[in-house]
């Protein structure tokens, strides 16, 4: 289990307070389906995923993006025991949805990119300032004992955003 420093804890909460879930969720999911098209295999019932435009405007993708962010919110509210908080979700993803856990990383990468661009846009409006953010945590979905899906380790790392470089 990860032990969060005060800085990490505060920064993660801060980042999530600044982003619009209804924008970030759909954007992250659709980006994942576009950039890593094999992830579409899990969304066979979602209708038209034929090209980027179709994916970006697909209402079921948008709705599901919000569901996914909602799930992340649960982790946010239970940072000290995500494993327990996600136990049911873990069983769902391994037993029922049968999602290859490598896909979690792909979605996480897309989420990182969407959040990064959102934060940059948000702070542009607030005028130049140095943004320090602590970020990158992966979902920890433990496999159920029956299927032995390997544990995804939660890593907490920090990155700094350098605003002055943007404004050179």
């Amino acid at each position: 289990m990860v032990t969060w420093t005060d800085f990490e804890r505060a920064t993660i909460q801060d980042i999530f307070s600044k982003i619009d879930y209804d924008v970030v969720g759909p954007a992250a999911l659709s980006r994942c389906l576009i950039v890593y098209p094999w992830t579409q295999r899990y969304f066979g019932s979602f209708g038209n995923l034929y090209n980027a435009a179709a994916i970006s405007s697909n209402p079921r993708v948008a709705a599901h993006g919000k569901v996914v962010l909602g799930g992340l919110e649960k982790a946010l509210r239970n940072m000290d025991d995500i494993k327990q908080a996600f136990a049911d979700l873990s069983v769902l993803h391994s037993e029922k949805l049968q999602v290859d856990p490598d896909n979690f990383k792909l979605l996480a990468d897309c989420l990182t990119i969407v959040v990064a661009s959102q934060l940059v846009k948000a702070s542009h409006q607030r005028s130049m300032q140095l943004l320090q953010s602590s970020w990158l945590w992966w979902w920890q979905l433990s496999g159920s004992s029956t299927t032995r899906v390997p544990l995804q380790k939660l890593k907490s790392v920090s990155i700094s955003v350098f605003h002055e470089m943007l404004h050179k």
Partner: protein
Amino acid sequence: MSLTAKDKEVVKAFWAKMSSKADDVGADALSRMLVVYPQTKTYFSHWKDLSPGSAPVKKHGKTVMGGVADAVAKIDDLTAGLLSLSELHAFTLRVDPANFKILSHNILVVLATFFPDDFTPEVHVALDKFLGALSRALSEKYR
């Protein structure tokens, strides 16, 4: 997952847009990589200062992006075009190729922050493929 004609077009067009910021992108990506993936610091133990935005980091970010620019120009045959760079990384630097993926990811994150509106999903996928192809070309001489 080789580059289609469309991918190459998208990469070249986006590169034209961003090339004036290439050095800054390189410096920021490298800075981030060293902080977020500290295992990569092991390759730079000879630098005095590994902190974000330091002089050696900036300088090296510029070098790396110079390589990427070269790859854009040689996008039609990356393996041949990056041969000597591959030899450098394989025999002299001996960078584990897993790290190419890490740096590629950081470059993409920085591009998203520098160009939030231009870094669309379509541009993202083309660039991801390009950086993947670049990494493969760089790994060519390893064994």
